[in-house]
């Protein structure tokens, strides 16, 4: 696996992994905000999702339209097997890099 992903792409993929299949943009956004404390914007999440979809790491489909969304359809996103593999590789790389540094994780 030679592909590398950026930090924010990694966060989006991990949020998607946590939210499960057919996750909405809001769910991914909330997951990132809640777990990282970063004040990310919804459009930024969608730009990244569009890029990840181009790379084949996620796939999307249209969901149902609801009144609470002003009658607009939801976009449901699912992590692909390639995406999962990229995540695994990314973790392996990071763990190898961290190993032996002696630094402890801090919030």
């Amino acid at each position, binding site marked *: 696996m030679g592909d590398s992903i950026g930090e924010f792409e990694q966060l989006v993929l991990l949020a998607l992994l946590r939210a499960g299949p057919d996750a*909405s*943009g*809001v769910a991914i*956004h909330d997951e990132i905000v809640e777990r990282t404390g970063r004040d990310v*914007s*919804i*459009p*930024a999440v*969608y*730009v990244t999702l*569009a*890029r990840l979809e*181009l790379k084949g790491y996620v796939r999307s489909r*249209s969901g149902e*339209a*609801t009144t*609470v*969304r*002003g009658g*607009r*359809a*939801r*976009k449901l996103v699912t992590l692909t097997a390639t995406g999962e593999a990229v995540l695994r590789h990314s973790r392996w790389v990071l763990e190898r890099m961290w190993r032996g540094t002696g630094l402890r994780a801090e919030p």
Partner: protein
Amino acid sequence: MKRRSGPPAMARWLAERALPATERECVLGDMEEKYVALCEREGARKAGLWYWRQSLLAWWPVTVLRWPARSGRGVPAITLPGLWLARHAARRLVRRPGLSVSVVVLIAGGVGSVVGITAIFMGWLYPRIGVERPAEVSWVEATDSSGSTVRAFTADALDVLSAASSQPLGSVSAAGATIRTGSDVGRGLVGYVSSGYFTILGGRPAMGRLFGDDSGAEVVVSGRFWASRLDRAPDAVGSTLLIDRRPFTVIGVTQDGFDGLESSDLWLPLNAKVGDSWRARPSLRVFTRAMRSGSGAAWLAVAESRLALAGQPLRLRLRVVTSPVSQAERDAIAFSAWVMGGLAFLVLIGACAGATNLLAADLVTRGQEMATRRALGSSPGRITALVMLENLLLAFVTVPFAAAAAAVLLHLVPSWLPVGSATTRFYTVSAGNVLLCSLLTVGSVLVASLPAIGATDPAEGLRSRSSSGLRTSRAAGIMLVIQFAQSMVLLATAGLLLHSMRTVRGLPSGFEPEGTWLFNVTLPLAEYEGGMAARFQHTLVSELAAAPSVQAVGLSRVTPVIAALPVTIRRVGEPGAAAVAARRVPASNGYFTAMGIRIERGRAWRDDTHDEAILTENLARILFPAGDAVGEEIESDDGTRLRVAGIAADGTQGGVEMARVMYLPYDFTRAGSITVVMRGRGGTALDRVARERVASLDPELATSTLGSLDDLLDRAQLLQRGMAQLATLFGLLALAICGFGIYAQVDRQARGRVREIAIRLALGATPRLASAVVWSNALRLGGIGILAGLAIAAGFGVLLSTWFFGLSRVEPVILAAGVTIVAAIAAAGTAIPTWRMLRIAPARLGQD
């Protein structure tokens, strides 16, 4: 929590524009879903703010991150044509640094000149008034029964006006005073003000407090005075200042920028004025704020009737405070302002013409690119939009440079103008100037790009470059003619102004300025009455005269060159004799020697003379055309009869005409302002002697150095010199623009004809014959431009000759010099690219 009906419509509209069509639904849906949840949890306000933030952040991917393009997958790249074009335009400008820098320099120079000159003259004509919302403040003025304007009122009249008004009235009486701060003694302007002064004008205390109704020996100092004379001392409030020897406690410092209506250094309450005699003198200027026309008229009518009952029949009026500069002073400056503004505008036109040339030339070289774009499906509108956007972007880049050019001019020019350093603080690059700069820059670049766009048809470019090139060449030729013409006009104007200035400088001043030194000292009236004043002045004269470096000392009540006391004189014994207007100069015996004024006939006076006068030659000639004036009797407008003791040599005394001056004996018993003239060696040495002697006689008196007579004569010509220098600067700028323009034009033409010239050379044409092709066109354009400029400059010269001294209606030498210089620049601008063309042409033929 109550839920809002929906997210902010404007924010949603903004987000819609930023999002690509394929992502718009889902992103906006998510944002609305989240907004609803936030509304319920944290309220509509917070939710609204959150939505606004998201909408603004939606532009981030558009401008920086970019939405990814998906070919064939239904999610296209963001299609915001404006942004795409802007990015493309920016790239084009970076790839053509030569063109970009040239246009920026040209337009920034032109716009900077116009904005700088406008700011300087507007600042000069209408300096900032240091009060809050000055447009709402009006002076109360009146016309008396003789039709004269009354600007100041007595204290009794003020009481009547205040009683009739429902609005608060303020009053001020400004006077110079000697102010001691610690060991430092200096002169300053003191405003004696009523209790409502600060409230009406919006003065606030930055430190301490302002006056109350029962203020006594208290003083409020301006922020400017606090900074310059009190060194921003934090404990200034509570300290004591000696103002005309009387102690006053500082109770407050006004906010920065508050100078009052009269630009005072400090303010004292009205009741701090010495004695009660001032109450009967009309010395108070009265003002009010925001009186509506209806209530104002009603108040004026009531006040007029009450004043009439009090025995003061006046017709009152309100005049909005516009400028501390008097109308007469404004009138004197206005013509210069128009001339300079016009010249600056000419520079801008020349700069626009230069930029047009460059942009048009650039479009010719891009003809094939345009045609290719057209062939690939770009609409003509899109191509035009691309070009316009490139130029617009160039304009935005130019704005800061134009502002910088204006700032440089603002920094340079005030030192050439007849204003003291105290007023230069008005010349700043304000928000208004920057806005003017921006509008002019964008306008100029767009105007400059219009002919260029019109000259190039993209479709034409693919078929042939000749016709578009021809049209662009024609437009460029017209622009070049304009540049030649404006260079001629600016250079000729500069020459005329310099000539006028030299002529004025060559006139006899009537003085011998070398070795003179002047200073002012003011003796307070309250303490120097009669004998005291006489003793002080006699002692000062004898002590200064005894100093080793001093040869002569004289006293006067008027500062020569920069001030004058008007008087009208008639001959005694001839009832029908016409009164002659002249200047009155009370001067001591030593004044004539110290100033270097030659007594042509008769004699000077002794210092105890009271009923004699000395006239300048031209005044004596007007009063006594038939014979010698010496020994004759004259009468001034106040009824004083004087015998002519002597005739002084004529001189302009800083003006442009021979001054009519009547010298009167100096009254040593009077206090007040005195101008002391010393003749001796070494200006600074004389200044030190003056300060030491005055301080030894009275340490509480402040001296104001005026400098040498040469300095005063220079100051009298500052406006004309400043204008001449500015015109020269503009002329050189225009010349540079012109030289640059012809170089660019000839160079472009030469590059286009390299092949043709090479063939001509190969076929046996001499280099001279080959280069004649280029020269002929340059000569044609230059000739037309110079002739047009000559005609305009000649007309302008006639106009200037009516305003400036020493100019005849046509100045052939100056016009010829202008033609020569412009022609030389044109020749240089043509010769360089022609020479280069002749060098590269044979090699080019070899390549082909």
